[in-house]
């Protein structure tokens, strides 16, 4: 287990996390948010904030075998379990189809 600074997101009704070190910036669009990472970007329905010193457990063999996506680890926020995604290989659910930027320009938010 490792303590990390984690940005909490909501996507498709579920809670997810991404380590804050990997986040370059967050922009807000008409249909949600876009989280810009080092190499990828994530579409999110909502951004809940940053949790300091979140306990992140390594993803074990059972998750690796039966999920089919890479994970940096697992965590719990207010009794809700969540996956902390691998910033270099985020799950397909974070595809960029939902979070589109507004037509009148970026509604940028400062990086968390």
């Amino acid at each position: 287990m490792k303590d990390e600074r984690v940005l909490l997101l909501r996507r498709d009704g579920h809670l997810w996390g991404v380590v804050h070190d990997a986040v370059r910036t967050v922009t807000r669009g008409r249909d949600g948010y876009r989280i810009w990472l080092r190499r990828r970007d994530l579409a999110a329905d909502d951004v809940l904030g940053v949790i300091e010193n979140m306990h992140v457990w390594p993803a074990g063999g059972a998750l690796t075998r039966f999920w089919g996506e890479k994970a940096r680890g697992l965590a719990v926020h207010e009794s809700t379990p969540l996956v902390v995604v691998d910033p270099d290989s985020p799950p397909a659910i974070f595809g960029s189809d939902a979070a589109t930027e507004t037509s009148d320009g970026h509604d940028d938010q400062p990086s968390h």
Partner: protein
Amino acid sequence: MTTSRGDAADDRYLLIQAGEDQCVLPLARVRRIVRDLQVTPLAGATQELKGLAEFGGEPLPVLDFSRLIGATPGANPAYPVTVIAWAGPAESRELVGLQVDAAVEVVTIKADAVVPGGEGIVRGDVSLRDRPVRVISLSALGAGG
């Protein structure tokens, strides 16, 4: 029910009902049996992975045990019971939740009564009160198991 975390050889097992099958899990691997554990589905998971749960403040993958062993689902597969157990090899074991129909009782099975065979996590079979029971190896449950 709480038991030892150890992986030492033991002839005590937990008899469980999984669909129409009965199986035994090594009791030394069982940490607790809970009812109505709340499970959060995980997008993209296979049918074996029901989702994630919180147990004792820690995240826990929860597996559909009947699907793991290819058992025929029962008439009312609600899986009200979750067996929380150590899975994987001893050096890299992890806690998982196994959704089953019922935790029946603790039984004693001598090693020489087990007929080796089966695939995946099924180590073999044993006859218990003239009924076939599958013997499960949780050490084989993991990334490569």
